[in-house]
């Protein structure tokens, strides 16, 4: 079992979710985070402040956590890579991190392990 954590642009959340569902992944946890990439600031053209383009540096992002069994990891990653890009990929599109998951337990039933994912 592994934990796939993706940081994506907020406006792509709906698309990523749909793509994940299509790929058979329906259980996810999302949250709002704020991101900080090296060079992305100069290129963000979306925020207007009283008609003046400003250079933001802490930008809103969405974090998606997906616990999945090993064979679903690549499926999940590919679904995200497909859906989270703006065009052919734009700076700020995000990152995916994968960590090892030791245990997983469903609270409702107390069952654990890969069938609890």
């Amino acid at each position, binding site marked *: 079992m592994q934990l796939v954590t993706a940081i994506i642009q907020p*406006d792509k959340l709906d698309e990523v979710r749909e793509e994940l569902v299509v790929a058979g992944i329906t259980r996810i946890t999302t949250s709002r985070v704020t991101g900080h990439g090296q060079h992305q600031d100069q290129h963000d053209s979306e925020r207007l402040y009283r008609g003046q383009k400003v250079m933001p540096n802490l930008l*809103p992002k969405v974090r998606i956590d997906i616990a999945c069994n090993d064979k679903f990891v690549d499926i999940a990653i590919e679904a995200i890579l497909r859906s989270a890009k703006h065009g052919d990929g734009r700076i700020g599109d995000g990152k995916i991190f994968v960590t090892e998951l030791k245990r997983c337990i469903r609270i409702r039933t107390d069952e654990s392990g890969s069938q609890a994912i």
Partner: protein
Amino acid sequence: MENRGTIFTKYLRDPLTICRVLVLILLSSGTLLAAEETVAIDTGTTAWMLTSTALVLLMVPGLAMFYGGLVRTKNVLGTMMHSFAAMGIIGVLWVVLGYSMSFGKGVLGGWCGWNPDYFLLRGIDDVIMECGVPEYVFAMFQGKFAIITPALIAGAFAERVSFRGYCLYIVLWSILIYNPLCHWVWASDGWIFNLGADGAIDFAGGTVVHISAGVSGLVAAFYLGCRRGYPSTAMHPNNLVMTLMGAGLLWVGWFGFNAGSAVSSGLDTARALTVTQVAAAAGATAWLIIEAVHLGKATTLGLVSGILAGLVVITPAAGVVKPAGAIVLGMSASLVCYLGLFLKEKMGYDDSLDAFGIHGVAGIFGALALVFFIRESWMQEAAAGFGGSWSVAQQLLVQFQAVAATILYSVVVSGILIVVVEKTVGFRLSENAEKSGMDHTLHGEHGYGLINLN
């Protein structure tokens, strides 16, 4: 002199306080030449009308908050912009041609009014109406109605229209629907104003404002289609707290809306204010009870829906019913609207914030049901002016004609407008834009910086 005087002569909205307009003409030489009959300013009535104008304007941010709180976070600014843009755009349009089209002498066979002196309000700089109020105040008071009406429609197609399309739509809607309707119902030579014994009863805008907005919204909801994912995906309000605040401001502002429509500061005004208060309270209480009985718990959204239903239903009736009638109207409006929402669920259209579900339904219901609660004296006066007899059934027919005409006209013209807007600048947002949200796509901003670390 006589002639020039009568140009300004018109009947104001409340038949009980008919005000003829007289003029203090300031000749170009600068000498003041009084008209035959000089109307003195009534500072008290003027004070209340000024206040009412401010109160009705307060409803626009109130509406922005009400609607803004109900959409998803990504659309909160875009939704509030619908109200605020109307404040700007219709605010200008009204002085350019709205007032003239609404309250000028009937032209084009009575389709709308026109008075060249009203263009940019040039001719009313010194006019005091017979009720003692400067005509400027009346024009501004009326202008606020013209602002809020298109903003109401926006609830029907929330979260899925382009800003440019919306702006074009409200401009056309205001010119082609609001102004004519306003002329028919409230100008002294409007045909609905002159129906039956004493005209159709629409004290403060049941037809002109709520029904027209409601059914136009319904048409738009049908034509533009549902939001992506509706109804299978839940679309939670981003800020019910703000919706409550907005409802509070709407209630307060509605005192200006209804009691101001008396264009007086006296008994009629007091009556209108009283039934407005009572109907809103009754609507709120009824919705609470209905939900408590039906769902087992009362919701805040239900409460504010009940407030609105009560306020809408009393709008056409505020000049003619008594408190007891207001309680009955307010309570039944909540019931009717509550039932109506099930219909929506059945039919599957996406009237996102219930512009039709509340304003349309309660507006129609109120315009018709009011006939059963008319003050005796009104009926007697109507009868007196109509050869001695006038019945509730006859008045119901008149009301029905007014409502039907409003619905028919709004549906047809609004339908055409939507198609025109969609085919020209585009109305419905693209799928991607809708997914990303209006705030990001249309305005390049987001509403709540606070939810992310600054």
